[in-house]
C-alpha cells in the first residue's frame, strides 16, 4: 500500500505481525525451477530472497494501510490480516546461483533459477 497516500493511516510495519506461509506454486522444468509465491500487500522493498547452496529462502512483510483509531472506523470483518511471510525450498543440487532472477508484480513473486549446464564427457574406449 502506498504509504504516501495514506497520510491518515498507520501502516502495520512496526507492529508484531503473525507469521504466514505463502501459497506457492513450484515448477521443475528441464532446465531449472520456477517458484511463484502469493504475497498480498508486499512491495519490492519488503521482500528478501536468498539462495544458499540449493536452499531458497524467502521472507517478506505485508503493508496494509489500516485506519487510525481516531477515524471512527472499527474492524467489523477480518478474513485476513497483515502478516510476515516466510518459507524455504530445497531445490536440486545442480542449481546455478548466478542465474537467480526474481520479480514481484501485484503481490505475486516469481523466482526463476536455472540448472548448471551439465558437462558431457565422452569416455574413450581403448582396444584391448
Amino acid at each position, binding site marked *: *500500500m*502506498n504509504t504516501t*497516500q495514506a497520510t491518515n493511516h498507520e501502516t502495520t510495519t512496526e507492529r508484531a505481525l503473525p507469521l504466514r506461509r505463502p*501459497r*506457492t*506454486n*513450484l*515448477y*521443475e*522444468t*528441464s532446465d531449472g525451477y*520456477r517458484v*511463484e509465491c*502469493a*504475497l*498480498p*500487500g*508486499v*512491495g519490492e522493498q519488503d521482500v528478501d530472497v536468498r539462495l544458499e547452496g*540449493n536452499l531458497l529462502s524467502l521472507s517478506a512483510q*505485508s*503493508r*496494509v*494501510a*489500516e*485506519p487510525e483509531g481516531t*477515524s*471512527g*472506523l*472499527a*474492524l*467489523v*470483518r*477480518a*478474513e*485476513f*490480516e497483515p502478516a510476515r511471510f516466510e518459507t524455504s*525450498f*530445497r*531445490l*536440486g*543440487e545442480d542449481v546455478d546461483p548466478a542465474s537467480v532472477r526474481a520479480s514481484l508484480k*501485484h*503481490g*505475486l513473486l516469481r523466482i526463476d533459477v536455472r540448472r548448471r549446464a551439465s558437462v558431457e564427457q565422452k569416455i574413450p574406449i581403448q582396444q584391448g
Partner: protein
Amino acid sequence: MMTHDWTRTLAWTPWDGFERLQRDARRLLAARAGETQPPVRVHASASKLELFVELPGRDPADIDATLSGRTLVVRGKAVEGDAPTTVAERREFGLPAFERSFELPWNVASDGMQATFAHGILRIELARVAEERPRRIAIGS
C-alpha cells in the same frame, strides 16, 4: 524426481506423515476456497466503510467493482498463467474467476466511492449519502 524439501526438519514421529497430510489438505482446501471467494477485511463506521480484498497476482484491469443500490459486487475473470512446460510441479493456487457481493447497511453517496489497487490488495472506500448520516440533535435547556 523433485528434490525439494517442503517441510522443516523436525524430529520424526510415526504420526508425522499423517499430520502433515491433514495439515496440507486443510490448507489446500482453504486456499482453493479463497481463490473464488477472496478474503476481505472490512472497517466501518456509521458513515464510512473501507473494504480490503486480497487478490495477489491479479491485474487491476481484470477486476471489476460494481455498486448497485446497496449491493457491492467485486468480481474478476480467470487469468491463464504462463506456467512453463514442466517435468514436475506442485501448485497451491491459481487465478480462477471470482465473485463476492456485500450488502451495505446504507446508501452510498454518488461521489463517495473510491477504489485503489496496490501490491495485490484492492481497497474500496465508500461514504454514506449525506442525507442519511446520523445527525446530532441539540437539546435546549
